[in-house]
């Protein structure tokens, strides 16, 4: 067996027994005889960029852009190697019901873990999706790793405007080789949403609870991964989900009346560029102004402050922020509390920051504010326009009304 990064020392060989078990045997004082040599190609990048196709019922075409991540990864039982590739055939093998909904086309665009995504990747994913839409696909789905999924969903939401159909991003929290994987249900729901939903928005479809009873359709600019491992980690923040798909009935229920409807294909706009020199700085007790100075000196064009509470940083940092704004860096303020809205009029520090020219991000998530700023800086030359557009609601990334029920509830000693 190939040794893995997990093996503790070099002096152990892994042996696979006939019953399928692996075990490690020390080579110290061991007699080893090579009976036969055999090589297995592990983790090859063969076939990357390829498009595969499986015909199904009806005349609808379902396009799936695969970018990598848990949802397309499978452990090979012979070697234990992770294969992060997706073909249409694999997909049908996993979710045979998809064939009943149409023909399946899979574009193996990337095989990367989502922590390695960069704004450049957002650009090419936007372009790939654009091509699929204008190419006539009836449904477009993007399979993506979960860690940075909300960044990509925000990016697509700004880059692809006047959508004629929903773009559904889907991931999974349990890899597809597990019988308990959430990927099959999430994928099924994605196709149902992509084909049938009335909205023309970028959405994220993931489990809504830890049961297999419904999948949530969250607005791409309002969704956050709020748990490191649960399958219901993706939840809408400062908004409610657009819809849910109930299982086993496969029924789509729209639960939010505030959404962008489907547009005509001719009106679709692609603005796929993103500025890479934008940074997120989290405020914390003791945050040093040098960090801001460093970014400014390095030529960064935008800074997203992840402030405390209503949108604050310690006063010692304010002079550096002032300097940043003066040299033309766009500085915006979101909150690290996750829930709630920034309001910089309540306390002195907030007012001082407003006076230096820091822009409040309203109730935008830090991630969304970051992507939005990056997109604005890459697509608009006029700083005033960038600033105006940042504070303007473009794709429902800002929700002006927070009703009480949209805030989650925790366990407070009541009945389970």
């Amino acid at each position, binding site marked *: 067996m190939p040794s*893995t990064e*997990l*093996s*503790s*020392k070099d002096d*152990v060989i*892994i042996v696979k*027994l006939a*019953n*399928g*078990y*692996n*075990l*490690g*045997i*020390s080579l110290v004082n061991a007699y080893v005889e090579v009976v036969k040599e055999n090589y297995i190609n592990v983790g090859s990048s063969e076939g990357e960029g390829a498009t595969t196709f499986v015909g199904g019922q009806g005349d609808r075409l379902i396009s799936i852009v695969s970018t990598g991540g848990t949802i397309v990864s*499978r*452990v090979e*039982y012979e070697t*234990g190697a*992770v294969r992060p590739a997706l073909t249409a055939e*694999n997909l049908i*093998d*996993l979710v*045979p019901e998809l064939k009943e909904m149409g023909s399946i086309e899979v574009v193996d665009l990337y095989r990367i873990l989502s922590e390695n995504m960069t704004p450049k990747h957002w650009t090419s994913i936007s372009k790939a999706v654009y091509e699929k839409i204008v190419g006539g696909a009836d449904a477009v789905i993007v399979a993506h790793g979960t860690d940075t999924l909300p960044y990509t969903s925000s990016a697509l939401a700004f880059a692809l405007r006047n959508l004629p159909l929903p773009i559904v991003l889907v991931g999974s929290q*349990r890899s*597809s*080789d*597990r*019988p*308990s*994987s959430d990927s*099959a*249900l999430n994928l099924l729901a994605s196709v149902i949403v992509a084909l049938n939903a009335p909205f023309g928005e970028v959405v994220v479809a993931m489990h809504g609870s*830890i*049961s*297999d*009873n419904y999948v949530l359709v969250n607005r791409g600019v309002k969704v956050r991964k709020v748990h*490191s*491992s*649960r*399958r219901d980690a993706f939840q809408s923040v400062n908004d409610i989900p657009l819809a849910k798909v109930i299982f*086993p009935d496969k029924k789509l229920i729209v639960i939010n009346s505030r959404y962008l409807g489907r547009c005509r294909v001719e009106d679709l706009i692609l603005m796929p560029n993103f500025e890479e020199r934008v940074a997120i700085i989290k405020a914390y007790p003791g945050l040093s102004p040098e960090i801001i100075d460093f970014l400014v000196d390095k030529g960064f064009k935008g800074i997203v402050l992840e402030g405390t509470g209503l949108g604050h940083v310690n006063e010692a940092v304010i002079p550096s922020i002032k300097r940043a704004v003066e040299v033309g860096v766009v500085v915006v303020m979101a909150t690290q509390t996750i829930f709630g809205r920034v309001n910089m009029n309540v306390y002195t520090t907030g007012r001082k920051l407003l006076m230096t020219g820091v822009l409040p991000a309203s109730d935008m998530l830090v991630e969304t504010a970051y992507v939005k700023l990056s997109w604005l800086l890459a697509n608009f030359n006029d700083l005033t326009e960038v600033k105006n557009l940042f504070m303007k609601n473009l794709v429902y990334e800002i929700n002006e009304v927070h009703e009480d029920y949209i805030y989650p509830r925790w366990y407070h000693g009541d*009945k*389970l």
Partner: protein
Amino acid sequence: MEINYSEVGLQVGLEIHQQLDTSSKLFCRCPTKLFEGSEEDVAKVERYLRIARSETGEVDPAALYEYMKRRKIIYLVPKGHVCNVELDEEPPQELNKEALSIALGISMGFKSKIVDEVYVMRKIVVDGSNTTGFQRTAIIALGGELLDEEGAIRIQTICLEEDAARKVRDLSSSVVYNLDRLGIPLIEISTAPDMRSPEQVLRVASRIGLMLRLTGRVRRGLGTIRQDINVSIKGGAKIEIKGIQNLEIVDKVVRYEVMRQLNLLKIMNEAIMRGVKDEDIGSISDVTDVFKNCRSRLILSNLKEGNKVYACVLRRFKGLLNFEVQPGRRFGTELADYAREWGGITGIIHTDELPGYGIGVEEVRELYRVLNADGGEDVVVIVVGPEDKCVRAMSAVVGRVKEALRGVPKETRVVNDDGTTRYMRPQPGAARMYPETDIPPVRIDEGVIKEALKYVPRDPTAVYEELVSKYSLSPELSKQLLRSPHIIQFYDLLKEFSGSEITPQYIASLLTVQLKGLKSEGVPIENIGIEVLREILALVRDGRISKDGVIEVLREYALDPKKPIDDLIRKYVRRDLEETTKLIVNIVESNRDELIRKRDKAFNIVMGLAMKELRGRVDGKVVADLVRKVLNELLGSTPA
């Protein structure tokens, strides 16, 4: 039926699963105790398991796939016993080192060779008993042996694995599991198929069980040890039998399985003699019309719901479905198992048992007529229910009957309470095993080995000899103690109370005969833990209660474990000699006339009255001596 087991070529292998007594589970820090609280502390989670078609191993993939797709799994999640790890909502934490040490200690006791690095694997299990769809398991040692009077039994592998969830209900469309048991560390000891007689299987299973108990670190009580056996005979098949929780019936299970295989071979020979071929096993037809005016309540209620009756002719099979294969189980029962497992219907009806069930001679005749079957030679099997279920059930029955023409089909079976078995599922092909990539391999270094040495069980034969020679227990009591779950408690208590009036014999009899006595009265002795025994024996040592009081206190404690022991013993606190004498003198004084009149029975009368007051507080012998003394003074001399 007397069976010569060496002539039939019996071979039996054992697979023993024993829960380890650790403070937390194998891959998370939840407790290893089962939930006993109320329903309001239980949440529910509903799941479906799926498996990619290419990953199903050698089991008929389509069938398995369909089966899984329609089955809802409901998990009960009791508060305080289950975390995100069991729910498959968080990756497993590091392998429990305590469990590993105990399991390695046990492996050493079997002279099994310990691996240098432990790799946890995922074994695909699709029945829902694991939330992940796989069981985490690791080989920790290979080889080894166990001595038996009929020769050495080879150990093949020793694994450390997580226990599965506890099945609560099993319905055709859903199954309910409690997650409290999921993740409790289990050791699995697999022997080679080296056992040749039912008695030997019982002996070996007992010896392995005893060795496990001798570590002092295995859990006790129902369900904490489970054995699977595989049984084969010449011309038969290797049959896996799962879920034997009661060790004492393991020999019976073997006997019944041999009986079953021999009987299936008889059925095969009879069918061959009658010239039955595959094509004599008919196709499935709708015979609902035959039963339109039928008086059977089962059929009528089904027809009312729009269900149908389906039939299949088994040509030249007449009488064979009534052939008994195990006590109380006929060949027809075996077919019904298949109908139930594959079709989710309650069972089958066949003409070997008709007329009956409200189905009259007329309908049977009509059934044979429409199916063009011979009433003197053929059997007709019918099933009732919704079309899809009936078709699945009947296809499974037809498949099983065809197997009967070839002998004993390979099956996984599950044991019934009486030692017979029923069909559970087809035998899985080579299990799909994947590396558990979430858990780093564990190197077995000197530190781990040193820790494991603490748990190496002693040789049972040496323990027996020690009980007899060093502690002077009778051979019978020694054997009883070794068979009981309490051998470790014996040593614990012995150490604590050596040198006091509490003798090894007393402890041994308390832990065996006396506790068994309480149990047979229906007292819940599982409430009596080692701590309670220790506390009560300490009271005896300190002279606060008498030995006679111990079992009374234990009874009351077991019936109400919440009561403080101080309250329980109040009734049994030892009276000093002076008090006792005073009490006896009082009894004698107040019954003076009667005692003189019934001189011959005086001792018994006084003893009876005195013990009513003193039982458990003063030893009977002491009371008797005092009674004699006081009566002597009154009567001059005492008879008896």
